[in-house]
């Protein structure tokens, strides 16, 4: 199948219309799409990077916990949403593309399509500082 599932297409279209950073990943964690607001966090445009593996995109954030320790990729909300099929939320620090440390909160939830198909997950970021 060449075309993405309709649920992913509609999620992308919704994300394109919203102003907060939104990331859309497939069941393996590969980044399928991120919107313009998310481009500012990643420091690159979706049209330039295309899809990215989980390792590629998560390393760009260099997420740091409140106590200063690195947040492992598997502890990020998107990873939890994918692996445990539940919503997850976490506040942490990242260094954005502009080099400035920012405190963000991320909420992620799994995408279950018609017929129980696991389609991936959506992550939404809020800047807290």
């Amino acid at each position, binding site marked *: 199948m060449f075309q*993405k599932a309709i649920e992913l297409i*509609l999620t992308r279209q919704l994300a394109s*219309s919203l102003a907060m950073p939104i990331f859309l990943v497939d069941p393996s964690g590969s980044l399928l799409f991120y919107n313009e607001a998310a481009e500012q966090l990643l420091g690159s445009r979706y049209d330039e990077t295309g899809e990215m593996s989980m390792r590629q995109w998560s390393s760009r954030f260099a997420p740091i916990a409140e106590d200063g320790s690195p947040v492992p990729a598997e502890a990020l909300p998107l990873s939890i949403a994918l692996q445990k099929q539940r919503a997850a939320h976490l506040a942490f620090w990242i260094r954005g593309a502009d080099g400035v440390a920012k405190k963000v909160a991320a909420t992620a939830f799994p995408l279950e399509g*018609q017929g129980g198909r696991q389609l991936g997950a959506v992550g939404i970021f809020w800047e807290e500082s």
Partner: protein
Amino acid sequence: MRITLWGTRGSLAAPGPETIRYGGNTSCVEVRSKKNALLVLDAGTGIQRLGVRERGGAGRIDLFLTHLHMDHIQGLGFFEPLYQPGREIHIWGPPSPTLDLRSRLARYLSPPLFPVGLRDLPCRLALHNVPPERFEVAGLEIKADLVCHPGPTVGYRISEGSRSMAYLPDHEPALGMCDFPGPAEWTSGFDLAAGADLLIHDAQYTVEEYDERIGWGHSAMPDALAFATLTGVGRLVPFHHDPTHDDAMLDRVDSATRAARQLPFELLAGTEGSIFDI
């Protein structure tokens, strides 16, 4: 395959002298295989006349519903083969996460909306959710996939040998896209229509009407043309005409479309009674 349009209108039946050529009946398309298997796409009011023609027939009928909006099921209770004892009829429809197909159809085919219930029909009736994978009916390959339209809605691709037709009567692939068409892989309905010999596609609105009805699940003619170009179909049949569009207006839209640019496919008028062989 031979494809016959029994109903081409969208949203509401619109009979009258001003719609006599494009037709007033809502969505219903007959697909007849080389071996004479009968597939019916949607059960709008157009299915009533098809049922009369089928009077006395004995063969199996497979009815594929794209979704359960009223204009696509209103003719179901008037489809004569349903009242023919022993006639084998299969109704296929999109799955819902909450109710099965029988329960959803019974909302219409039961009092007080209709006097006859599904369980009272004397035919041999079987109801099926369309599976997500390709499947075969009477030697034809069927592919159903969810498309962009409010509520669970599928489009269909039907293939016989190397020939194929796609049916997307209610489809808004341009929804939320600032520049349509975008990448093929992010376009609703692309896999269903890609390379089809014949595409029957929603073209309900003018551009001006679409601007006021974004999100209602339908396409303006330019978006239908763009979708047909992107998918590389051989022929396009604009379909699901708005009930307020009379023959004169649809003729004007057709003429303006042909005059505006060279199309990479053949544009056919979506008139009730039209027959296409592929």
